[in-house]
């Protein structure tokens, strides 16, 4: 039942607003609202009970193994939440003067520095509000760079076919055209195709390495050389940074610009779909274009740099400079880990992925790239199961829910048929991985015995399988009040 359906006219939780209605008769009558907004009228208990119970209908890291590929669903330390929520941090107005901001600015400045070190980049801006905004900032800087050089013909961005959908979408938002580069059968970018594609129109390439197919592109140096020689720049999609933290740095691979998804590698909460934070790091030549604000240190004092301090900046990504509360959480996480902890992240994330892949292969599942090491994630293709039992990847995914596991990412990347992209993360114990292998094995046995068991799944959740087609065809996007006579 919706909270709106629990509403009763005249019911209020009056402790939660000023007790009196102040006089607002000075507001022009013509600009006043005619009818009270249709918000629910419920008691505080009703709201608390409703949302507490709704929350219980979610799978989450805090309740389930959640190996959603490309999303890095690892433990979000609770300390990050409580410390970022200290009253001093929550109360600070975005326009507070620097005199009343040195504490948070110290955190932000140190975070900028740490991100520079882990990525091997020359400078970092924390401004973008999420990964996709970081991508956009990144390609905007590539564009600003070429434009500043008068190189106005470079209007094409190369994107491997395995790339996250945000890559081409971001390139388009920055005013580029997009050209796809195929992935070779070994999972690496098809270098020959890349060589054919580059030219004077090439603004750059957007790449994630390890790629979304879960392998480290061994030709990265050749790719960098090819693109650079053609006059393009290299953009690193930091979605998979968790795989290489402390092991290899995008800056050392030759990338010119990178974004980082702090809600992945730096474990800020995924929050049911955000907020994220997507800091960008750049090589020296792109530094002038970084989005504002930046924090700089002058002696013992921290200062903001904004538009008028940085005239070549691509500008600001949000009104107030970024998702500060998320940046704080990432900072706290980074301080808890330290250098040795960061190295452990990639080590154990990779160990878990390779172990889970090995166990699944042993159990008879098909790896998409069987000859390759897994990075922090890997792809299993269920095309054999689809052919033999008529059960597709989504059927496996839904049935996994019944076994108490969130499903891996399904049908992405698009180039691998019936694929599951599995990312266990470093914070899961071996027992969880073993449990997942057991469940997959049982589900395949079910598929063999009676495919309908999978096709009808899930059975044990708050709802059975939902009709997505109906949702899109018979659009119902908002509850509407029945108009009552006043």
């Amino acid at each position, binding site marked *: 039942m919706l909270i709106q359906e629990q509403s009763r006219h005249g019911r209020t939780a009056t402790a939660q607003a000023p007790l009196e209605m102040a006089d607002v008769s000075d507001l022009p009558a013509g600009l006043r*609202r005619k009818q009270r907004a249709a918000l629910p009228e419920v008691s505080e208990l009703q709201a608390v009970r409703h949302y507490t119970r709704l929350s219980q209908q979610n*799978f989450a890291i805090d309740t389930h193994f959640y190996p959603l590929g490309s999303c890095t669903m690892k433990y979000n330390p609770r300390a990050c939440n409580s410390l970022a929520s200290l009253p001093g941090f929550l109360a600070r*107005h975005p326009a507070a003067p620097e005199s009343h901001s040195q504490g948070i600015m110290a955190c932000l400045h140190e975070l900028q520095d740490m991100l520079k070190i882990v990525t091997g980049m020359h400078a970092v801006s924390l401004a973008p509000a999420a990964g996709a905004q970081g991508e956009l900032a990144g390609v905007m800087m590539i564009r600003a760079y070429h434009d500043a050089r008068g190189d106005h013909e470079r209007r094409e961005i190369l994107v491997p076919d395995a790339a996250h959908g*945000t890559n081409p979408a971001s390139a388009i938002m920055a005013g580029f055209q997009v050209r796809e580069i195929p992935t070779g059968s070994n999972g690496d970018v098809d270098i020959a195709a890349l060589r054919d594609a580059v030219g004077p129109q090439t603004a750059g390439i957007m790449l994630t390495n390890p790629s979304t197919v879960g392998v480290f592109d061994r030709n990265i140096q050749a790719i960098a050389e090819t693109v650079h020689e053609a006059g393009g720049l290299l953009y690193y999609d930091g979605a998979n940074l968790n795989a290489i933290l402390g092991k290899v740095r995008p800056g050392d691979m030759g990338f010119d610009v990178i974004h980082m998804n702090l809600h992945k590698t730096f474990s800020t909460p995924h929050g049911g779909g955000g907020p*994220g934070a997507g800091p960008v790091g750049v090589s020296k030549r792109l530094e002038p274009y970084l989005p504002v604000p930046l924090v700089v240190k002058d002696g013992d004092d921290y200062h903001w740099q904004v538009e008028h301090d940085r005239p070549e900046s691509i500008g600001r990504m*949000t009104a107030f400079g970024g998702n500060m509360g998320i940046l704080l959480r990432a900072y706290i996480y980074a301080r808890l880990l330290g250098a040795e902890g960061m190295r452990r992240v990639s*080590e154990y994330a990779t160990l878990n992925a390779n172990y889970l892949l090995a166990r699944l292969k042993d159990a008879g599942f098909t790896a998409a790239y069987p000859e390759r090491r897994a990075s922090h994630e890997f792809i299993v293709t269920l095309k054999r199961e689809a052919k033999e039992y008529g059960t597709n990847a989504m059927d496996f995914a839904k049935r996994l829910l019944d076994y108490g596991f969130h499903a891996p990412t399904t049908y992405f990347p698009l180039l691998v048929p019936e694929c599951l992209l599995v990312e266990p993360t470093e914070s899961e114990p071996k027992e969880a991985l073993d449990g997942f292998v057991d469940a997959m094995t049982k589900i395949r046995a079910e598929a063999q015995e009676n495919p309908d068991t999978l096709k009808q799944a899930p059975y044990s959740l708050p709802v059975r399988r939902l009709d997505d087609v109906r949702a899109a065809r018979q659009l119902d996007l908002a509850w509407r009040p029945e108009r009552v006579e006043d």
Partner: protein
Amino acid sequence: MPFIPHTEADVAEMLAAIGAESIDDLFDEIPPELRAKGLDGIPAGLSEMDVTRLLQGRARADGQPLCFIGAGAYEHHIPAAVWQITTRGEFYSAYTPYQAEASQGTLQVLYEFQSMMTGLTGMDVSNASLYDGASALAEAVLMAVRANRKSKSKRVLIPKSLHPSYRRTARGLVGNQGIELVEVDFDPATGQTPVAQYEAAAADGECAALVVPQPNFFGALEDVDAVTDWAHERNMLAIGVVNPVAMALLSPPGDWGETGADIACGEGQPLGMPLASGGPYLGFLTCKQDFVRQLPGRIAGKTLDADGKVGYTLTLQAREQHIRRSKATSNICTNQGLLVTAATIHMAIVGAEGLERVAASCHANTRRLTELLCEIPGVEPLFDAPVFHEQALRLPAPTDKLLRALAAQDILGGFDLGAEYPELDPAVLVCATEMRTEEDMVAFRDKLAAVLSDE
């Protein structure tokens, strides 16, 4: 090891299963010359206790001054229940509800949020959030240009009385797609942007849409009905930028003019988000039913399950980047889910009547603050117009000096208007939400008077 559960025995067993000698072997596909030598400069890890001490010190260092700045971010009371529930692990540590059956909690919240935002704005449909108010405006502009079937123009009128950071952000985000934001001057006497000003700005050529803020950055109330109707007469779409708390009292975009605004967006921060230095907040974006397929961002829809039971799922995904890639309505992926959860719980607890009282109290407090400050010689309203919840004041001395002197006494005395509008200098934009008491406001007046008399 913090956050890593592996015992030595586990590692040995796992390596054996993989057939590797060491964890390091798992990285053997990385060219050796690329392998990072270290993380010099990253400090050693701290215990939670030590990090706690460090952060407590930093938070304390910033003090908790008495804040009279609004300017797009507002210190409201947030019921204790809001964040205690929002940070429950099931909301906090879930992700985008790709597996709808295992995410009914989040999905129903999104649907309820969309319903509340349409209720508040009077529009037909809402998405499930964008990053913030300014980036929401950018998406609204992009959407309007795409959606306007009557005009091929890529020009959009945007008044200078709109928040300066919104204008800057929007310009940056839409400029690369060849969209021109044409600035519209405000009436220097009132701070408002009447139709005549839009008309003047549009003289250069056809426009696809216009933006109208309510209230505007100066707190002044615009004649939204006239501007909306004028836009429609010229085949432009009207984009409203509104404060959601103000919507409890003011006519919502859906009711503007004859047929209502076409798109309404804004900053959701006043709906249960702490100031938090500027984020995370949440941008909202609502529109008429006709434009739903041009709406960017996640959208939750109601549907049925295999047994005919009601459930919720993400829908219209064909608009989105993970399906549509370069043809998507936007590149947005992760949005502000957790803030949506907070806003939804906030609105459910406060309710329409509570929100009205909050809005009224903010308005009355700012009015009272204006009265108090205008007792000081040389302080007076900058504009002659009805305002809501913000007040622009002329000052008798340089703004930055005054604000610095006040800050030294832990009073944040408003937003320096001269920094953004040199022609208005010296002037300040003040705001007193329901959180400010009479005592707070009198203290502000007294300290400002004292600072001025020291001049």
